[in-house]
């Protein structure tokens, strides 16, 4: 491991609040001598510390775990949500992915349903609204049968886990030309709909969550599959097809609990 450092040409989107105008600011003078072993957010930390030493208000960005699991972080880096490295969140992206002298543009995830809070931070509470519409299995605490009562084929459990691995970061929305949250919604649906425990509410859940998705102002899916490419967890768009199938069954057969 070497002690390489690089100088960057860094441009960051600054915006005071949801309705304020915003623009890119050139912070290249603060982005010199960055260690290639630092993470992208550690690079921003460094820039922030240097800026505040100059009395400039630091860049606001969301982050918490810095391990790629909480889904807090996220910025569009040179046009790509979470940046150039495949299946990697912004916090897990490391500076060795960039050349010395690289030009880097950092801006927030953009979508009508994700209003900008400040600088790179956006409001993703519409994701919580989608879950509240039906992203659960109704089981009161204490009312569960023994965990091994219903055997679940390993394949189903694994497939459900593949969907459940979504971290809710919103990169899929930022990547989609329609600002659709179909991948997020479909992954959440698949997680529960593929398990025996999830069957009782399957069709109702599907209808309600997709309804909440549309109500939140997210666009529809027109199969660009940019979401899959941007997803830091590599979630497959096959889940969207599944969700659409379930929605069709729900509406045609009335299995979603509404009488046809």
């Amino acid at each position, binding site marked *: 491991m070497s002690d390489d450092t690089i100088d960057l040409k860094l441009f960051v989107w600054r915006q005071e609040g949801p309705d304020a105008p915003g623009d890119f600011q050139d912070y290249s003078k603060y982005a010199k001598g960055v260690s290639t072993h630092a993470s992208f957010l550690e690079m921003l*930390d460094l820039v922030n510390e240097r800026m505040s030493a100059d009395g400039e208000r630091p860049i606001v960005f969301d982050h918490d775990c810095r391990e790629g*699991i909480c889904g807090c972080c996220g910025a569009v880096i040179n046009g790509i949500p979470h940046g150039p490295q495949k299946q990697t969140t912004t916090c897990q992206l*490391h500076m060795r992915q960039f050349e010395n002298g690289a030009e880097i543009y950092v801006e927030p995830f953009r979508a009508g349903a994700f209003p900008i809070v400040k600088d790179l931070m956006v409001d*993703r509470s519409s994701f919580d609204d989608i879950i509240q519409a039906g992203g*659960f299995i109704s089981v009161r605490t204490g009312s569960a049968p023994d965990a*091994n009562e219903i055997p679940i084929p*390993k394949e189903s459990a694994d497939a459900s886990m593949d969907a459940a691995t979504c971290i809710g970061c919103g990169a899929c929305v930022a990547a989609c030309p329609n600002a659709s949250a179909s991948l997020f919604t479909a992954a959440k649906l698949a997680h529960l709909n593929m398990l025996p425990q999830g069957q009782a509410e399957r069709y109702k859940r599907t209808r309600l969550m997709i309804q909440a998705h549309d109500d939140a102002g997210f666009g529809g899916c027109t199969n660009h599959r940019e979401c899959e490419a941007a997803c830091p967890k590599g979630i497959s768009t096959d889940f969207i097809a599944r969700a659409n199938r379930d929605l069709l069954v729900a509406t045609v057969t009335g299995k979603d609990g509404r009488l046809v």
Partner: protein
Amino acid sequence: MTLKSNAPTGDIEKRWDKHRFDMKLVNPANKRKFDVIVVGTGLAGASAAATMAELGYNIKAFCYQDSPRRAHSIAAQGGINAAKNYQNDGDSVYRLFYDTVKGGDFRSRESNVYRLAQVSVNIIDQAVAQGVPFAREYGGLLANRSFGGAQVSRTFYAKGQTGQQLLLGAYSALSKMIAAGKVEMYTRHEMLELIVEDGRARGIVVRDLNTGKLEAHTADAVCLCTGGYGNVFYLSTNAKGCNVTASWRAHKQGAYFANPCYTQIHPTCIPPSGDYQSKLTLMSESLRNDGRVWVPKDPKDATKDPTSISEKDRDYYLERRYPAFGNLVPRDIASRAAKKACDDGFGVGPMVGGKRTGVYLDFADAIKRESKERILEKYGNLFEMYERITGDDPCETPMRIYPASHYTMGGLWVDYNLMSNVDGLFVLGEANFSDHGANRLGASALMQGLSDGYFVISYSMGNYLARVGKNDIKADSSAAKGAVKAVEKRISDLIEIGQKGSTHPDEFHRKLGTLMYDYCGMSRNADGLKKALEEIPTLREQFWDDVQILGSGTELNMMLEKAGRVADFLELAELMCHDALDRDESCGAHFREEHVREDGEAKRNDEDYTYVAAWEHSGDHANPKLHKESLEFEYVKLSQRSYK
């Protein structure tokens, strides 16, 4: 005040049942008259809020992230223990109880630990019913693995993302109750004060992090589920936002802080690579099943390509010192051994702060024995994560690891009902001190958080509310207004200093972290602790003189948030050192260099220290006051741990 644990007596197997029967109930129609505040939506908070809402209480829940699902519990990797004995390998509630008491080095309450082991089985049932996709065998039944030195396979897991999946389960239950109108959810709100009147917790003061607005919220009871304080060390495996503020504010309002010096340092983390390092990443402990830990015998080899160092020039120090357990010794022992190797000058990797802080964890033999494919099948995602962070492939060159602050066994003191010494203030999850004694076993924190939230608080809350009745305090009462004023003052003080100050809050935090690792970390001694007790107040004074904060208190201001948290860590750190100094013995993760057995291991002093140290705040510049809750061991006989 004498500390009453309120733990039931009698046959340990029947204690919880008997206690549940003895507790008062609130009649179903009356539950909706009571309001309960839950601060924190990790495993403990989300499960508590959802469960109490299902019962009919009106809940207000708070977290500082933008969604309840992002609490730090999401990051837990390895798994959750439960005494299901699905593997038929000799596990039982009693064995889990026994292992936990022994693992905690006889510094926990037997009654609590037994209850934890008992309800562990219900947790798995609940999680599966919610749709948590635990790993399964081909027959469709749940799979288990052994974890953290346990001799039975009782750990349930969902790939390396068990915390994520359990939290998503609890969050889904919480979401359902939010939709049902029974939980009002306040995201991006930080609790900055506890409202206490007539000795009873009546509410909290929060700051809306997006606008800076302060609000008082009142209720009939308050539950703190705000996680651990491992970030006092600056570099830790915790999320960046993890803090002690909620607990510390409550402490300053009268709640006792128990065993603050019991902090766990996890042996397998990726070492710091430079001064810019902002956190350390945990590499699952399961790696020690196949990896061999070593350092070069000759410090001059520290910078050599490790694969070129011959077998005879390597010191496999864990295998050498602990032939029976080898690389699988418990966390505290593995951590101390790594620190010793590096302190003695045998560390590897880059120089950070004048030292090489890393040891090798080598998979070459495992790959030779089992094949690369098989090893990647087991650890592929961890290897990828390691490579992403360090740029090195662990199949080609050994990993470098070093211990990091990971978990805090200490926390606010609670009785058997999870209530602190302040009436109506309950503390759940990592924020309380209750079940792990001086050392926590792997995969037991998730179990404890969910046990507290799903299965204990629902009973003890009813019992409390039935006893005390409705709280009549309102948000515009003088106690609430006074609390808001106090927070306003604190923020304006910080802003005033901050406008002139020149040192970034992170800089103070880094300095505090170094101090704590040096004097109150993996090993401690009286001289070092006394030194820390001199240096911390000095650092604190510098902070209150020169911390830099740009911007105002009435807007989104991350420097202000950070400064507020660091201010509280600076006070907590001092209490930790007091506690570590007072506990003049070694036990579990608390290793006092003066108290070492002949074989080099921790030497307990049961005669003088079989107690919980619960500290009372007695003013900003006064020494804290110690209260002792003595511990009795009726079932697990006091004995020295041995992993030789």
